[in-house]
C-alpha cells in the first residue's frame, strides 16, 4: 500500500508524509486504510483494516464532530486527541480531507500526545523522529523544564534576599544596641572624671585630693581604652585594619605586654605569670601589633573578671606535619564562660550573663 506508487490518487498523502512521520488514512467509518511506517512501530502492523475507534479512545474533539463512529466533514481541521491504554500510546493531530487509493478519505497527521504519555506512563521516552519538525510539544516540555529551573533559581534568590534583609535588620538593631551600650559605657567613666574634678576643686585635704586625682586618672584611662576599642572595631568593619608582617623577639613582645598590663593587675593585687617554651625560636615573624592587641584583650579581660590572684599565660610550640604554630594558653580561676555561651564570644557587644562585675565593657574584646 505504498502511496508513492499511486501517483494519480495519493498526492495529499505524500505531502502529509513529508509533513509528519505519524500518518494514517481513515474511511469515514473510521477504518484504518493506511499507516505510516513510524506509526506502525507504535500501533502494530495489524492496525490496518481495524477501526480507529476500537484501537483508540477518542478524547477530543467534542463528540458532536464524530457521531456514531462516523467521521464528518465538520471534524476536519479539528485537533484530534486519541489515547490507548492497550497500546500504551496516544496521538494528537489533525484530520484533513484527501484522497488515498483513488478513494475519498480522511488523513490524520499526528504526533505523540506527550502530556498524556507522561501523565499515564510516567518516564516514557519518545523519539524526536516521531514529531513533525514544527510540532511545539518538545519545546513546550523544554519550557516546562526551564521554568522549573527558573523557579528554583528565583526561590533561591528570594531566600538569599530574605536572609540579606534579615541580616541588614539585625545589623541595624546591632548598631542601635551599640549606640545604647556605648553611651552607657562612656557615661560611667566620664561621670568619674567630671565628678572627681568637681570634688577636687572643693576639696581642701591634700590626701583626699590625691585620691580624687587617681580616680579621675583611672576613669580617663578607662574612657581612652573604650574609645580605642570602638575605633579598632570600626576600622575592622571598614576593612582598613591592615595586617603587617615583621620579625620580632617574642620575649620582648611579652615583656611589653606585661608592662602594659602591670598596672591593671596591681590594682587587683594580681600576679601575672608568663611562661615561654624553650622550643620557641627567639625571633618569630608575624603580625606583632595584632597578636599584642589580642593578648592584651584576652589577658586584660582575665584580669578584669578573674577573682583569683594569679593569671598564667603560656606560650608553646605546636606542629602539624611541616606546619608550626604558636600556641598561647591563658589560665585563670575566674567566673568563666558557660559552655552554651562560648558560641557568642566573638559577637560584637556580647557580655556573659555571668558578668556581675562593675567593670566597663564594650563587649568587643574577644571580637577584636
Amino acid at each position: 500500500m505504498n502511496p508513492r506508487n499511486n501517483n494519480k490518487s495519493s498526492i495529499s498523502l505524500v505531502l502529509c508524509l513529508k509533513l509528519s512521520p505519524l500518518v494514517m488514512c481513515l474511511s469515514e467509518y473510521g477504518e484504518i486504510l493506511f499507516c505510516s511506517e513510524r506509526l506502525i512501530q507504535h500501533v502494530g502492523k495489524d492496525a490496518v483494516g481495524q477501526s480507529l475507534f476500537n484501537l483508540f479512545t477518542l478524547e477530543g474533539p467534542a463528540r458532536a464532530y464524530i457521531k456514531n463512529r462516523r467521521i464528518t466533514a465538520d471534524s476536519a481541521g479539528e485537533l484530534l486527541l486519541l489515547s490507548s491504554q492497550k497500546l500504551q500510546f496516544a496521538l494528537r493531530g489533525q484530520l484533513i480531507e484527501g484522497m488515498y487509493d483513488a478513494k475519498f478519505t480522511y488523513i490524520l497527521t499526528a504526533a505523540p500526545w506527550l502530556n498524556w504519555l507522561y501523565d499515564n506512563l510516567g518516564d516514557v521516552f519518545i523519539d524526536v523522529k516521531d514529531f513533525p519538525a514544527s510540532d511545539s510539544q518538545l519545546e513546550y516540555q523544554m519550557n516546562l523544564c526551564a521554568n522549573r529551573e527558573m523557579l528554583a533559581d528565583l526561590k533561591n534568590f528570594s531566600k538569599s534576599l530574605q536572609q540579606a534583609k534579615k541580616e541588614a535588620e539585625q545589623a541595624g538593631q546591632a548598631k542601635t544596641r551599640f549606640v545604647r551600650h556605648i553611651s552607657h559605657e562612656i557615661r560611667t567613666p566620664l561621670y568619674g572624671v567630671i565628678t572627681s574634678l568637681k570634688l577636687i576643686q572643693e576639696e581642701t585635704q591634700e590626701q583626699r585630693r590625691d585620691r580624687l586625682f587617681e580616680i579621675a586618672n583611672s576613669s580617663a584611662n578607662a574612657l581612652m581604652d573604650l574609645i580605642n576599642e570602638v575605633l579598632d572595631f570600626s576600622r575592622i568593619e571598614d576593612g582598613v585594619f591592615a595586617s603587617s608582617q615583621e620579625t620580632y623577639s617574642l620575649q620582648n613582645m611579652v615583656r611589653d605586654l606585661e608592662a602594659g598590663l602591670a598596672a591593671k593587675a596591681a590594682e587587683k593585687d594580681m600576679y601575672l605569670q608568663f611562661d615561654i617554651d624553650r622550643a620557641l625560636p627567639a625571633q618569630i615573624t608575624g603580625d606583632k601589633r595584632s597578636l599584642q592587641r589580642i593578648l592584651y584583650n584576652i589577658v586584660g579581660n582575665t584580669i578584669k573578671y578573674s577573682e583569683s590572684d594569679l593569671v598564667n599565660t603560656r606560650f608553646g610550640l605546636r606542629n602539624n606535619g611541616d606546619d608550626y604554630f604558636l600556641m598561647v594558653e591563658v589560665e585563670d580561676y575566674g567566673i568563666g564562660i558557660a559552655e552554651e555561651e562560648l558560641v557568642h564570644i566573638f559577637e560584637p557587644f556580647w557580655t556573659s550573663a555571668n558578668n556581675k562585675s562593675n567593670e566597663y565593657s564594650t563587649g568587643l574584646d574577644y571580637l577584636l
Partner: protein
Amino acid sequence: MYGMIHKSIHGMVLEHLGEEGWKKIADQAEVDEQHLLSMESYDDHIVYDLVEAAADCMNLKPSQILENFGEHFVKKTLSNNYQNLLKNFGQTSFELLDNLNKLHTSIKTTFTGYRPPTFTVRYIMLDEIDLIYESERIGLSPFVRGLLTGIAYLYGESLVIAYEEKIDVSSGEQTLFRVVREPPK
C-alpha cells in the same frame, strides 16, 4: 552563554573545593554576580575567566577544567532536570549526537539569543562515528570531550575518542572527533 552554564561551573567547584574554593575562584575571576539565573544570558567572558581561575586554583590546565566541566554538565546539570527530554532526542548516545542540532533549534525557539554550536555526525560503522563540532566560540573543544564522557554515562555506554583533529577554519573553531562505542564489558 546562559546562566545554566555558569551555575554548572559553580556546582562543579562547590563539589570539589567547597564554598571557600568558590569564593576564591569567583574573586580571582572578578565575578560579581552572586545569583546567576539559569535562563538569563550572560557575557561569555565570565565562563572563560572562571575556567582560568579554577585552573589556577586547582593547578590544572584550563583544557582539563573544561573537560571535567563538560562531563559535570551532563552528569549533574542536565541529568537533574533534562534527562527525559534529552532521551527524547535519542535512545542511544549516537542518536542524541545526531539530533543535537534539532535540540538546539528547539531551544532557540524560546531562547532567541541562544548561539549554539553545530554537530555533524557521519557514520563510519555502526559503532563508530565522526563527530564534527563547529562553534563561533574558541577553545571549547575540550568541553565537548567532557560532554561525550557525560553522554556515555547517561546512556550506560562506553565511548572512546579514538582520534581528534582541529580543522583549520577562518573563524571560530572546528574539531573532528572519531568516536568509537565499545561493547559493554
